[in-house]
């Protein structure tokens, strides 16, 4: 806690999960689309590779489960902050089973694991934006007030503010942290509105970087002791205009990762991993 900001973006472990073949047909999606599972797996492979080699994380890969078509999106199953991990209760009933493996993995990592058992609560990790100083929880189709309350109860040190998500699947479908005190956000009206709310709710000041494409605002920020600011973003092929904006970031190493297939099933970059900082744990 003492060095929340300095530690922001520092990670030691990542939990990922394989892509089941069922993803193509059964995974939930907001608009109908054809998913090439092979291509998706290739992308995911590359993604893991970046986590492993570029970011130097210890990657824990959970096996895919065919009965859980969305299981690759591990982010929704757990919220990890410090040494505490909250196992969520995903808003989509078909995804509730995903938490089991996640829980085991986190316990194996010696995390302080808390489960969300309240049957009235739903929370997807994709709705949780941790800024290093506080949480914003999007109230979306997948996350409700009660889920947010439980999260607030688990992470007592931090302010937890709720933000209505009017468009898109999750809060992080249009924003993410681009660094300590920097929020990347899409330019759509709902995204901007959500940002306004976050700014109003916060005692802290955040800089914002607005990218033209909402989904391009979902990036993974990692701070490496030796390499500094690293930002994993979607490829230029997908969002050329947004990349131009991201390129304005000074002293950042930008790393592109193709996410094309996963986005068809509403999967963004952050969705595919749970990042953990074991060193910060006491």
């Amino acid at each position, binding site marked *: 806690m003492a060095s929340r900001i300095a530690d922001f973006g520092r990670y030691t472990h990542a939990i990922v999960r394989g892509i089941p073949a069922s993803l193509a047909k059964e995974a939930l999606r907001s608009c109908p689309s054809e998913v090439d599972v092979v291509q998706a797996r290739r992308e995911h492979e590359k993604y893991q590779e970046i986590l492993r080699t570029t970011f130097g994380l210890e990657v824990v890969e959970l096996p895919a489960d065919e009965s859980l078509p969305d299981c690759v999106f591990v982010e929704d199953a757990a919220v990890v902050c410090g040494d505490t991990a909250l196992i969520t209760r995903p808003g989509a009933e078909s995804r509730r089973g995903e938490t089991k493996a996640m829980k085991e993995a986190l316990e194996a990592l010696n995390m*302080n694991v808390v489960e969300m058992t309240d049957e009235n609560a739903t929370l997807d990790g994709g709705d949780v934006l941790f800024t290093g100083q506080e949480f914003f929880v999007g109230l979306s189709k997948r996350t409700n007030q009660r889920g947010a309350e439980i999260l607030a109860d688990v992470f007592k040190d931090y302010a937890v503010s709720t933000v209505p998500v009017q468009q898109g699947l999750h809060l992080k479908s249009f924003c993410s942290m681009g660094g300590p005190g920097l929020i990347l956000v899409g330019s759509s009206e709902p995204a901007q509105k959500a940002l306004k709310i976050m700014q109003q709710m916060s005692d802290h000041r955040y800089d914002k970087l607005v990218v033209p494409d909402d989904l391009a605002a979902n990036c993974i920020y990692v701070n490496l002791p030796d390499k500094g600011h690293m930002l994993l973003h979607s490829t230029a092929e997908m969002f050329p205009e947004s990349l131009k904006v991201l390129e304005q970031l000074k002293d950042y190493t930008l790393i592109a990762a193709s996410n094309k297939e996963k986005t068809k099933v509403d999967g963004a970059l952050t969705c595919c991993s749970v990042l953990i900082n074991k060193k910060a744990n006491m």
Partner: protein
Amino acid sequence: MTTEVSSETEVKEKAEESAAQLDQPEKATEETQEEVITEGEEKEKEEKEKEKEEKEKEGKEGKGISKFLPTWLKKPKSQAQEAPPSEEAISAGQQEGEGPVPEVNGHTEEVEEKETVKSEQVKETEAESHSNASADTEPAKEESAEKSPERSQETKEEQVEEKEGKEGGLRGGGGGVEGQTSIFQSPLRLVRKAKMKLVVCQVALLDGTDFTCEVEKRAKGQYLFFKVCEHLNLLEKDYFGLTYKDNHEQKCWLDPMKEIKRQIRSNNWQFSFNVKFYPPDPSLLSEDITRYLLCLQLREDVATGRLPCSFVTHALLGSYTLQAEFGDYDPDQPRPLDYINQLNIAPSQNREMEEKIFELHKSHRGMTPAQADTQFLENAKKLSMYGVDLHPAKDSEGVDLMLGVCANGLLVYKDRLRINRFAWPKILKISYKRNNFYIKIRPGETEQFESTVGFKLQNHRSAKKLWKVCVENHSFYRLNAPEPPTKARFLTLGSKFRYSGRTQAQTRLASSLIDRPSPTFERTSSKRISRSVDGAPMISITDVERDTAENGREHRLDLHSDSKSPLRVHGDNIYVRHSNLMLEDHDKTQDEVLKHQASVSQLKRSFMEAPPASPPQSNQWEKRLTSSPATAVRFQQQQVINAPSAEAAAADCTSSDTKEPTKTADVEIEETIVVQEVSKATQPALVTVAVDSPAIPPAKQETREQEVKVQEEAVVPKEAATAKQESVSSESESEDEAEYHPNVSASTHMPEVKEEEEEEDKVEEDKMADENMSAPVVASLPVEITKAAEDVCKKEEESKREEGQGGVKRNAEKEMEVGRESEESTEEPMMTPEEVPNGVALAEDAVIGLVGHAEKQEPKMNGETLLVEPRPQVICCSEPPVVKTEMVTISDTFAAQKTEIATKEVPIVHTETKTITYEAAQLDGNGDGEPGVLMTAQTITSESLCTTTTTHITKTLKGGLSETRIEKRIVITGDCDIDHDQALAQAIKEAKEQHPDMSVTRVVVHKETELAEEED
């Protein structure tokens, strides 16, 4: 309404008291002294009787008292006042309870002091009776109304006291512990009139101990608070406060400005000492002891769950607590979990947590207690609920919410979730009406209209409480100064509630100037001496701490330098004009302010350095704090004297009750009067020559409406005796609704800051004991100021004073009352020369704050001849129009549309202060209406032999126009040898020469004159 009116009760009291006192000597060591005391009491009796008479013959109080003052004066005077508190502590050591217990060393002094005090108290009584608005007009009614409840209450209290007294006697031999308690006893006794019942207060301290002390029944909250701070050896007291439980078991903050008795409304004189304003950055605190107390509070907050935190944080905080209290982890000594259990670290403390705590404790090896505290605070301050004061409420749909008031604004929680937040700059108005609490929100970028958000509170009480907390928090964290012009913060709380202490900006400055060796203190659980660390030499530790502090300070300065970053300026620029603190990044801005202040004034240092308040003086101080309604009464008297102007006067002074400074003008209570206009008068500036390219907005936003209201109210007491209660009700803070405009203050804010500097300057340089001026600074250490000032340059006077203390103080009281009146008579072209009581004559040799034409005029305007008038009467004269004209001469460019004249009579013995403000017209008229963006601000100070010039330059961007405003403060110090007129003229001339393209828009002349006492 207060006790004092009830003469029957007094008699009774007296009897009981003497009985009690007679009781005491039996336990006491020396019999002889008893006699003295008894004598004293007899005199008290006399006094009381006389007082009664006085009250019956309205308006003659002063005279009656003065008659027997000489008796006191004849008594040998001692240095008791100057005696260091420690001595008193020793001497008082054996005393406990109500009667004065004869004491070997302390005896004579005490008697003396007591006498002195008594006479003061007579004064005070007067003042207070005035404070009860119409009390004087119709004492009889009051009495009948108050008598019975009063009596029964007193009886009860007396019982308690007597008991206490006996206990004290029994415990007398006990020594040490007792001694601490009784340090404060003698002061109390000294200052408080014997007729006043003493009440035993129990204050629960943060370390779990109780502090017992006696206060006079009618003491104000701050009296007790100061006692507690004194006991704790706490200088940075502005972050703290006392709480009590009301009849509904709700914790309430004790208003320092109001009588305790009226607040607690029960006989339960039990309080807790608590942190009231959690410093956002505890590392900026100057003293370890302050941090320690903050730690204690936070430990409690954490342990009770009021400050929620996670398991890990619990453990971490607990481990720092262990380190601070017990030192390094000692593997040899098995650390049973017992002591950790005692520590009560978390609401749900379990073995797992305790183990974690030990584990972490090990890692803190070598950390000093102070460092451990610092670490504790560094972690605690990041907790999201740190410093958030929660109030249950409902939204318009009846959904349960929590409203959290904190440094940054108002937070809205639903369960644990933050669902909304209103930063202070966003809030235009805070009000409550019955059980509704409203905030008016500044329209957002896209919105056109202001919106009002309403919440329902449980009842009216809670709504009001929340409102008060908001007002206080806003003032503390966002304003430079709560009451800019007068600085008489402590004089201001009349009928309206406002924050009366120092703001964070002020207290930070004050802390940064603390220059005493770190006090040693004992940590409770361990009895560890604060600075002793295992094996570590104390000195080095201190050094470390010091360094940290210094770094902190430097850091601030750094911040200051880049504080002009465009980012900040653009942030919430609309607020800039209200106060630079209105910016979101207020910390930096504050620092900026601080720097300005620091560069000019060192007064506070001397305050801080000064020895702890000596009892009699602190009381003297307190007396000055008599609530303003006194003024109203006074004016009624005037009405008799001065029929024609009476009504106006009454209106004026009633309005000025609030002494609301224009600048802050924050609080508006609908039911009561808002006195924004009045405050102007109270500007403490010695001489302010404001030069301005566009005209300066004089921040004169008085509303005629309000004036009218005021007048109406003022008339009430005149018309009907029954109306008393009404005017009094203003004191009780118009119950049903109130408003607070956090942002009203407007463009004058910078000047205000400056004024403060000035004050300090003045006090420092002029060595004047100007109460009004020093009030803000003094807030926490009232006594020292007076004392320091006097010490420095008024030694002779002091000796005189000592001789005639009773009389003098009495006089001081009088002056003070008058002073206030005159102070307040701003708008009305009426001057109230102070009454000069017996034995005080005007001596023009003291400090004259830049006096020019003004000075010449003053006599005319005020009819200064009256100054020497020995009779305690207030005389009002209308202001001759001459002044205006003269003024115009000074500010040649503008036609003076407005001329304000204010007299300020300093409530201190030998000082007389006057402030005259001349303002040029606001020709552009948009002065206040438009927000400006502060571009730069700088302060330059230069000194010559007898003048000190402080130049404050602010550049503001207003509606595309850049406005440069230069304020010069010129303090001319010297005696009559100096031609003040010339000096002023010269100063103005110079100012004009230096800025030929600018115009003088305002000249404030503040003159302080020393009044020499007449030898008896």
